[in-house]
């Protein structure tokens, strides 16, 4: 009699465990569906997208874009978010994955269409180059520094911080912002 109860109990346990905790997947399937999950041993990078400089140059902004859905109140389009770094990932790879997953609009020219042999980001969140004055467009900083290279040429390493920023003055305004933060 007691034995029976024990068997019933363990049967319930097994079934509960099966129902609650397990997806039945092969190793490949698991790898594919969990590739972007952050685990303790994952290599990761951080990404943010902002257009804060537009807030200071709002009068120059194209009238069609003067809405909060294009330029958020705080200028932040994507707050600093951690992403899994895959082998060989460039600044462009992380950006394109992030905007896809967050449903942020993005338009770019592929590497073969630009003389730099690098992809070129034309617009994010409907904000394009020249949308906010002559010297406006998208720029990126890696660990707070600008680079001469195009975004699909810069490979990332564990812990890198990538910031996509909209500039209204050929990047000059981004440098100033950096100085301020450093002070």
């Amino acid at each position, binding site marked *: 009699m007691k034995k029976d109860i024990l068997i019933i109990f363990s049967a319930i346990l097994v079934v509960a465990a099966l129902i609650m905790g397990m997806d039945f997947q092969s190793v490949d399937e698991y790898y594919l569906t969990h590739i972007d999950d952050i685990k303790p041993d994952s290599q990761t990078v951080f990404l943010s997208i902002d257009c804060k400089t537009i807030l200071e140059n709002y009068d120059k902004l194209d009238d069609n874009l003067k809405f909060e859905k294009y330029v958020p109140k705080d200028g932040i389009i994507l707050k600093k978010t951690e992403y899994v770094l895959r082998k060989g990932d460039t600044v462009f790879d992380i950006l394109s994955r992030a905007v896809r997953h967050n449903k942020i609009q993005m338009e770019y020219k592929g590497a073969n269409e*630009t003389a730099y042999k690098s992809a070129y980001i034309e617009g994010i969140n409907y904000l394009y180059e020249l949308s906010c004055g002559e010297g406006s467009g998208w720029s990126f900083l890696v660990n707070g520094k600008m680079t001469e290279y195009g975004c699909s040429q810069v490979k990332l390493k564990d812990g890198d911080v990538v910031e996509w920023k909209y500039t209204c003055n050929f990047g000059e305004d981004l440098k100033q912002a950096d100085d301020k933060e450093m002070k």
Partner: protein
Amino acid sequence: MLNKSSKLNKLILLFATVTALLLSPINAFAEHKDYSNADIEKTMQGIIDWKKNDLDIDKSDDIFSADFTVTAGSPSTDWYALAVGRLDSSDNNYAYLSMLENYVVEKYKTATMLDDTKATEWHRISLVMLSLGGDPTQVGDDKINLISDGTYNRELFSPLDSQGINGLVWALITLNSMDYKTPDNACTTKDEIVDSILSKQNRDGSFSLIDNTPDIDITAMTLTALSPYHKSDNMKTKACINRAVDYLSAHQNKSGGFADENGSEAISQTIIALCSLGIDPVNDTRFIKDNHDLLDALMSYKTSDGGFKHQLDDSKSSSISGEQALLALTSINRFQNGMSSLYDFKTDTKTKAVNHIIFNENDVKRYKALHEKLTTKDYTEVMYLYNKLSDAENKNDYPEILKSLKDKKVEIEAVRKKIESINAKILNNLYPFDDITSDDADMVESIYKDVKTLDKYDQKQILGYEDLLKARTKIHTNQRSMIIETIAVGVFAMLIVLIIIRLKKRRQAKKENQMPADDNIDW
């Protein structure tokens, strides 16, 4: 080697120049002290070869092969094409021109036409067309007028100067390239553009891209734009030109170039500007510093692979530096041969080249080499053959090929549309990824089926293909889990039923065991 023998060279040159001046008045321009015309031509060929290599085009192939013409309309190849047209160094100008016209026609189907804000897109493409023998005032069946839309009537769409002075400068260069007249009802006249440019000059004679920061590159380009007016009677314009020339001369350093941070492009643009103004870029004393001139400086940016780099300590050649060096050398070459300046197409257009198009045996061979099943990879080739045959004088000789090419063109365009639509579906339906559930199975499966109908090459053009597989796997996993869960629950229920039956049986068995005992007692 060239430097070591420079003294001797100079003597020879001096002698040669004097003799040349005495004997033949035609050869009025002196060669460079170190680089002969042949050296310059060799360097230009080197740049073209570098670009070919960069695009994986065989050195022996014409530069205008499919891998090059596929990006017609983008700055990465347009400037090279302009130089190649000016140098007559391709036998196949038509290949690039037809792709460029095709690009314009396709782009004009969109709301922003060539670009939302950048007028320079119209200018660059117009100049390339002129250089290759095309006519930017009537492009495609709808006779698109790039000159009108890009210069004097640009204001109908967007201000000419949305990009700053750049838009004005290139509009002026484009208008003067063929001395296009602005109609009476034009939004902007040539004089207005000139005045607008003059008003932007800084006190020191320079021009700026950003605020009032002097910029060598922009100053030089502006001079190129103003060059047709250097002989005019307008004192104001003349004075403006002179001050800008003085500014450039004053900022030239001992090596003959400018501060390295300006990049080699500043030197190239200055050479183009001086040639346009009729100032000898390598012999005019205003532009020789410490025995070094602009060409010496430009050559110091040449890399061992034949290309040019942006800054002296760069390890790699840059496509932009190469293209500008090529244009600068083309300018010098034209200047020394007494030809019109780089962007002056008035005297030597080659519209004839376009008027005599023959679909030849080689083209027929290329047509026959097309695969039965076409992918988007074949688009350039099909477009080239189709455009050429429909423009060819002998097109009536090949009615079947023409029809077949048209079908193929339609076929590939349909595939391109399909790829676009799949890309849009993926983008709109698959994200955020965490929200994908088994309810989306039909949607994901239908996209997947669509993708699978595509050829392998075209499948690679699908953006987010990995995410599609991911979504599909996730849904399959969910479905499988559900099946297993159902089975598990079923098994569990059966177990319970079994156990209950067993319990009942046992209880009955016990009762039956006890019953006889009771009977025994009763007995």
